[in-house]
């Protein structure tokens, strides 16, 4: 049957129907297009902004591989590493994820995490295996930013940690570097974050971070001082050795506290500035800020008065001699010696040291009541002078005068000072005399005199009445006396009768003897 059909030319030819209508198969390319579009959208939607960060070196950064992390969450990848235009650094281009957009603000900190050994200990050990990565610490700002300057060292304290940031300045860095611990009563209270040298005023400025726990302890009148290393003191109590923690011994340390006796001032504000003293002792000796200058004019010489000498009020230190020079007052006809002193308000009042008015009033009142400045010898041996402020009984009324921009504290004529000078000179002369030699000679002379006296007394003892010598002698003398008497008689006889020597003694020859024994005794 099929053959009939097949070979029957009468059968109509099959209708070849070209498929004109749209086949449902076109759904497949549409789905593919949607899928592709979705994949592309997903890929680009996950891409956040691209940022550029400049570093000194690209050590350990690999383009296309090094991740950018924030709290160990990947927020981007390094796309490109190139040199900067001036060839002095590298520019790292990073493709951030979309969710990282909020992290890229004005104060975001970016640094490379590498294995490091620093003040804060060993860090970044995991990067030995995984390779370096770039860490990003978000800031508090809201202003978006795309160009960053990377930190060469990781920040000591991560951004966003609550606490107090203050500035410390000092003359000498003294081994204090970013990472140095700040302790309070031996407990770690913060760290030094930055160290900047200011060439214009020669000060070293440190940025310090005090954690929130200890921030209330920092007051406006708090003093910071260095506790680095060893503190050896030889004094009347013997040898004293003081050290901080082992860490501060190795890496230096800073501590802070209230000056003894002073109450707690108002809490320090964020960004407040403090002086950093070299030691605890220095905090009571020097003040580095907002002192009040006064000029003293001395008529006498000021030899022995040096910069840094103390200024004392009735024996209590209130300031420091800042300079002794004629340039402060070069046109004084009397050629008095100008001495500039700095009175530190913090030694006088408990107010914040910015407030100098109280100190000025204090000095003005004292001058009205007869306070005068004079030079006194602080040390008899070295002759070092200090400035003493004290009330004089018969002082004429005076006030704090102004002269060429300086406030003057009246001085006394220096009578006591001169007296002391004279006393010192006298002592100097006394010290210059050859006293030792004189005393040595005198004692030698006395020795010999003593020896002679002893000899004399021994000799005298030999001639006492009881001694046999004395008896013999007196017997001898008696005999001698008798002998002499007979000799006189002979002489008289010979005088009267010279011939008697030949003819013998005649009769009736008188023998007058006026002082018979005297000659003999004189013998």
């Amino acid at each position, binding site marked *: 049957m*099929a053959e009939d*059909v*097949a*070979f029957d030319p009468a*059968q*109509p*030819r*099959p209708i*070849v129907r070209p*498929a004109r209508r*749209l*086949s449902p*198969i*076109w759904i*497949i*390319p549409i*789905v*593919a*297009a949607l*899928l*592709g579009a979705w*994949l*592309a959208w*997903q*890929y680009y939607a996950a891409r956040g902004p691209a940022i550029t960060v400049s570093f000194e070196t690209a050590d350990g950064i690999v383009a296309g*591989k*090094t*991740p950018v992390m924030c709290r160990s969450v*990947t927020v981007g990848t390094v796309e490109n590493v190139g040199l900067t235009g001036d060839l002095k650094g590298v520019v790292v281009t990073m493709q951030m994820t979309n969710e990282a957009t909020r992290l890229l603000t004005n104060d975001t900190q970016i640094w490379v995490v590498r294995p490091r050994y620093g003040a804060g200990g060993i860090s970044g050990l995991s990067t030995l*295996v*995984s*390779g370096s*990565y770039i860490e990003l610490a978000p800031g508090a700002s809201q202003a978006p930013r795309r160009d960053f300057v990377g930190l060469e060292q990781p920040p000591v304290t991560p951004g966003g940690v609550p606490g107090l940031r203050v500035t410390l300045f000092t003359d000498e860095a003294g081994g204090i570097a970013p990472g140095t611990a700040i302790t309070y009563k031996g407990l770690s209270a913060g760290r030094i974050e930055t160290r900047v040298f200011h060439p214009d005023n020669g000060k070293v400025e440190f940025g310090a971070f005090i954690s929130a726990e200890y921030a209330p302890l920092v007051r406006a009148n708090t003093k910071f001082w260095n506790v680095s290393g060893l503190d050896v003191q030889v004094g009347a109590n013997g040898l004293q050795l003081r050290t901080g923690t082992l860490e501060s011994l190795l890496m230096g340390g800073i501590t802070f506290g209230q000056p003894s006796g002073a109450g707690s001032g108002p809490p320090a504000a964020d960004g407040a500035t403090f002086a950093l003293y070299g030691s605890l002792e220095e905090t009571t000796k020097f003040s580095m800020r907002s002192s009040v200058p006064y000029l003293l004019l001395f008529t006498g010489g000021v030899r022995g008065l040096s910069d840094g000498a103390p200024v004392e009020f009735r024996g209590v230190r209130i300031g420091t001699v800042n300079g002794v020079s004629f340039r402060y007052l070069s046109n004084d006809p009397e050629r008095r010696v100008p001495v500039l002193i700095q009175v530190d308000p913090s030694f006088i009042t408990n107010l914040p040291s910015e407030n100098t008015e109280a100190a000025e009033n204090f000095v003005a009142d004292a001058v009205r009541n007869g306070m005068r400045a004079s030079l006194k010898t602080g040390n008899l041996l070295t002759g070092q002078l200090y400035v003493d402020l004290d009330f004089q009984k018969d002082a004429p009324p005076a006030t704090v005068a102004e002269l060429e921009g300086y406030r003057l504290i009246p001085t006394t004529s220096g009578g006591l000072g001169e007296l002391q000078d004279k006393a010192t000179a006298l002592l100097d002369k006394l010290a210059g005399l050859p006293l030792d030699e004189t005393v040595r000679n005198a004692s030698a002379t006395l020795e010999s005199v003593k020896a002679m006296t002893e000899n004399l007394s021994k000799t005298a003892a030999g001639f006492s009445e009881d001694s046999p010598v004395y008896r013999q002698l007196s017997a001898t003398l008696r005999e001698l006396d008798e002998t002499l008497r007979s000799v006189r008689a002979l002489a008289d006889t010979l005088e009267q009768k010279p011939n008697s020597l030949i003819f013998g003694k005649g009769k009736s020859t008188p023998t007058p003897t006026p002082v018979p024994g005297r000659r003999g005794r004189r013998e």
Partner: protein
Amino acid sequence: MRELPNEFAAARGLAVCHVCGLASPVSAGQCPRCRAGIHLRNRESLQRTWAFTIASVLLYFPANLLPILRVESIAGPQSSTIISGVIQFWHEEDYPVAIIIFVASVMIPILKIIAIVCLCLAAGAGWRPRGMTRLYRVTEFVGRWSMVDVFVVAILVGVVQLGSTISIHPGAGAVSFAAVVVLTMFAAMSFDPRLIWDAAAARAQPAHQD
């Protein structure tokens, strides 16, 4: 054959069942043996082929641009596309591997798509039927070998899962690439080679009659 177009089975109203191969009259509508629908030519062959081809072209871009593999190891995550893998092997002087990957994963899909487009155009215009037939056979044969990449990814993902030390995850590119390969295979399957000869015959017939 070209000289005797009337001797085509189609000229007699006969068509072969696509399922069981029985030749039966087209007018019957379905195969008398297996009841499958019978058509003279594959239904909507060209439309389907075009649709699959266009879909595969669309997916070819994400397949090559998106990462096909993401390796997470101690040294950090690293994702690679097909081309970056080829470049990496080439830099490591594994030239044979680089060439194999490049040929199997980049060249073959492209050449296949081009070949199918050529076939579709030839079916419309009736170009060189003999060459086009050979092209069709090659295209159909080579299709499955494009899946090498997908197999590699599948095996790696299954085998290399060592926790934090190293682990491998498929990327969006792998899915796209598999879709490209499957779609090109569908396109090759839905193409009816007889269209080439139809077109050639249609082109030859007017010349013969003249």
